């Protein structure tokens, strides 16, 4: 049975923890709104780019297609680009991402492929390097800027395209969280390089003139497309992080409240018990006289 003083100390410490989690929850809620608005604002660009890509890719299929679209012809070396958050306190978000990355890597390794990792964000680094020592070839630190924007996506894309041109990998997969709601963020695995051919074929209605040429435009478009995909992934990560954080901190605040109630009852009981004992002692003493 802890003493009254110990109980009081514990209650106070849980109270200050609750204050922290509550503050973090409110900050996340405010940031989530902003992150969602940013993700919303990025949609028109991505949608238009995908539409243009689809109509062009259908026309420039075959031998003349750029390497970013056609691939290296091999399917041996795979690169997993894992987008994690930089900060913790967001529930199971990062461990779910790492789990998805691990599952994909093991699936590829079982099929006899070589797997390497490229990590964006801090949080996935430790668990993945424990699981796959020596396979992490590179990474990009997004913790130096407050909100990763297009400049960061551009830097990541340029590095990846550089690695691809240097022949360091054949296929790149992008693993990132997709924001469904504040309660659900789904780790998603998609192929990044070579750019998967869009499903919808070109509309083929009017004859479109191209300047300079279809291939030149496509060659310029593909790196842009990769950049946009990464930018989208960063935005989704931002929204997911804030959403997950909000939910996790809401739970933590509620748990702290329950714990405080429990401890307060325990504290009052022991206080009552101490008073009763004292009274009995006094009465017993008076009766003995």
């Amino acid at each position, binding site marked *: 049975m802890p003493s009254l003083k110990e109980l009081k100390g514990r209650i106070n410490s849980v109270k200050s923890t609750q204050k922290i989690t509550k503050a973090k929850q409110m900050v996340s809620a405010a940031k989530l709104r902003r992150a969602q608005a*940013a993700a919303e*604002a*990025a949609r*028109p*660009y*991505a949608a*238009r*780019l995908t539409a*243009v890509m689809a109509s062009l890719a259908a026309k420039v299929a075959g031998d003349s297609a750029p390497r970013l679209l056609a691939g290296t012809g091999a399917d041996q070396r795979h690169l997993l680009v894992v987008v994690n958050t930089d900060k913790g306190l967001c529930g199971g978000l990062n461990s779910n991402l790492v789990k998805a990355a691990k599952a994909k890597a093991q699936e590829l390794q079982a099929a006899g492929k070589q797997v390497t990792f490229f990590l964006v964000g801090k949080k996935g680094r430790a668990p993945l390097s424990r699981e796959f020592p020596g396979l992490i070839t590179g990474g990009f630190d997004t913790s130096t800027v407050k909100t990763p*924007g*297009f400049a960061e*996506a*551009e830097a990541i894309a340029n590095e990846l395209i550089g690695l691809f041109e240097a022949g360091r990998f054949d296929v790149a997969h992008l693993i990132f969280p997709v924001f469904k709601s504040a309660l659900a963020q789904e780790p998603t695995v998609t192929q990044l390089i070579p750019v998967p051919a869009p499903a919808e074929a070109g509309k083929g209605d*009017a*004859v*479109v*003139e*191209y*300047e*300079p040429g279809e291939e*030149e*435009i496509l060659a*310029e*478009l593909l790196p*842009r497309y990769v*950049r*946009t995909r990464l*930018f989208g992934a960063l935005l989704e990560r931002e929204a997911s992080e804030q959403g997950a954080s909000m939910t996790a901190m809401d739970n933590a605040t509620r748990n702290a409240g329950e714990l405080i109630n429990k401890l307060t009852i325990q504290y009052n009981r022991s206080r009552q018990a101490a008073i009763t004992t004292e009274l009995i002692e006094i009465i017993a003493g008076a009766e003995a006289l």
Partner: protein
Amino acid sequence: MALHFELVTPARLVRSQDVHMVVVPGTEGEFGVLEGHAPFMSTIRDGAVQVYAREGAAPEVIEVRGGFAEVSEAGLTILAEHVEG
């Protein structure tokens, strides 16, 4: 006599309005787009997009970097990576 003009960057939709004419700095030379232009697609070089809201009006100049322009029946869409201002 109106051309629907949209300027989009990865971060946001910068412009979406009906204008008289837009002059776009294409890689192979500047070109003006009026309403009813034939379907056309071009990469653009870094430079100024001039937007003429009305015929004869002074152009509004928007600096863009990296991207391409697409003309379809729906109008002119410029996808640029960076927009100044």
